[in-house]
């Protein structure tokens, strides 16, 4: 549904995104994750045809975004990060206007307008002037205009930023529901959010893709290992050799804050192996008390930090200059 091939965009001399290539199949929810200024919004502006890439091509529903921009735009529903709305119009008038300029006729507009108003819980506010709505409700108006014309592709730039926690939960659920019918790209810098909503995540940093995967795989694939945390009551000196003898164990480190008869170990395990039952058996056969046994994937925060920090270490030019 969305094909992006080798897109680069320069603002003057500054490369906002470089060599971006990815594709989104129909019905997928793709998360775009990256710190502020990573190039998420730029990529979305290019995909929606608001500005052309410096080089590279992209297509939406088979239409090139530069050559056949008008056709491509017919298939897109877009919510920019700033949620731009005409503040002097009522919600209902605004939706009618947006429907008309997207080529919908009167009866389609009437039907879809009441649908989206209901879907986004805006019933009470349909004749309110948008300028009087709170941020959260404006966000909903923004989403409702994006889905009004039933586009194949939805592009939402930071859809949950700046709204209160209850609305965030509702909005996430709404987006997840939308993902059933639409191909969806969503950007965020909030990790749990994308891992909750998205089928696949692209991590973007300084304009480049640093990782692409499903939320669950991202942790294990990137770290190369899995880790297990184990808490046991027993003699430390006897426990370690027993654990080391379990097949698949690479390394054991003991949490030095634990002591006496109670020990906490972090065990590094070969990738793709689940040895938790072997570990449990080993502990119990020796008649020690097993208190806790948990698989530790790398959290998305850790992955994210690791990816972006590694990047910086490779680029010594990013070290801040001292003032003279």
């Amino acid at each position, binding site marked *: 549904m969305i094909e992006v091939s080798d897109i680069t965009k320069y603002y003057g001399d500054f490369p906002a995104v470089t060599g971006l290539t990815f594709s989104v199949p129909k019905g997928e929810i793709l998360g775009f994750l990256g710190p502020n200024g990573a190039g998420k919004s730029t990529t979305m502006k290019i995909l929606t045809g608001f500005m*052309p890439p410096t080089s590279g091509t992209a297509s939406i529903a088979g239409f090139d975004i530069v050559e056949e921009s008008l056709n491509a735009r017919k298939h897109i529903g877009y919510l920019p990060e700033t949620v731009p709305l005409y503040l002097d119009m009522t919600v209902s008038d605004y939706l009618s206007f947006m429907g008309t300029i997207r080529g919908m006729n009167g009866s389609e507009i009437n039907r879809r307008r009441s649908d989206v108003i209901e879907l986004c819980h805006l019933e009470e506010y349909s004749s309110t002037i948008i300028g009087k709505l709170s941020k959260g409700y404006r966000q909903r108006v923004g989403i409702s205009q994006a889905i009004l014309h039933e586009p194949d592709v939805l592009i939402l730039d930071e859809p949950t930023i700046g709204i209160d926690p209850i609305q965030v939960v509702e909005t996430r659920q709404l987006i997840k529901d939308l993902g059933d019918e639409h191909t969806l790209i969503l950007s965020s810098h909030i990790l749990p959010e994308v891992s909750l909503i998205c089928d696949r995540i692209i991590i973007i940093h300084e304009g480049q893709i640093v990782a692409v995967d499903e939320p669950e795989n991202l942790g294990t694939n990137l770290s190369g290992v899995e880790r297990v945390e184990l808490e046991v009551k027993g003699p430390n000196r006897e426990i370690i050799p027993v654990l080391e003898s379990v097949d698949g164990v690479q390394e054991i480190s003991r949490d030095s804050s634990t002591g006496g008869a109670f020990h906490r170990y972090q065990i590094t395990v070969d990738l793709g192996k689940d040895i938790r039952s072997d570990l449990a058996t080993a502990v119990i056969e020796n008649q020690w008390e097993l208190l806790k046994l948990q698989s530790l994937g790398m959290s998305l925060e850790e992955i994210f930090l690791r990816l972006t920090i590694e990047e910086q270490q490779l680029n010594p030019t990013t070290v801040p200059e001292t003032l003279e």
Partner: protein
Amino acid sequence: MNNLLAITAKETRAYFAMPSAYVVGAMFLALTGVFFVFDISSPFAEAGVRGLVDWASFFTIFLAPLLTMRLLAEEQKLGTLELLLTSPVREWEVVLGKYIASLAMLLAIQFVTLYYVLMIYVFGDPDSGPVLSSYLGLILHGAAALAIGLLGSSLSGNQIVAAVVGTAVLLFFTFIDRVSSLVEGAPGGFLNAISMDGRLSDFTRGVIDTSHIIYFLSLIAIFVFLTIRSLETRRWR
């Protein structure tokens, strides 16, 4: 076509719902009214609209950019232009729709000045020919001024900057003939040819010169076209 109509309708409705448009219109009418009274109460005043149209066209230089400054500058500032231009809408539909709406507003304001003309007919016996040709000139001049103001609005996200740019360009076209007499040869002739001044006085004398009509229509076409280009190149900036 639907897009053009939708944008025109939306902008026209916005004008008539906007207090600032009424304030600006009222200022224009008050100023032209005051000068109209000065004009006709002088001794030997003629029963005609020449004085009225002179003043009205002069104040249009300030009125038109104030009317158009919001049209594209506000869209840029609010970011709504991004949604508008990522919808399947062409740039010319956006520009032309907004232009037509501003023209509707200007015509509404100019329509009120007919009250002064009515007064002239009540208390005098003016020649109807020059009255009609004067109003044709006034409308053409105003329409050109709006096109220039609209270009100013496309250049900045700041409405004040947009209005100042529009007024400056209009003042250039109005007073350039004062400079053109100092410039010799072809450049001087060119400056004289692009000047607005003098063209309106032909209309007020009752002369409808095709070259003047073509001049104003060309100004409208050129500045509307430049505005469309300005929006298109926004994408590349």
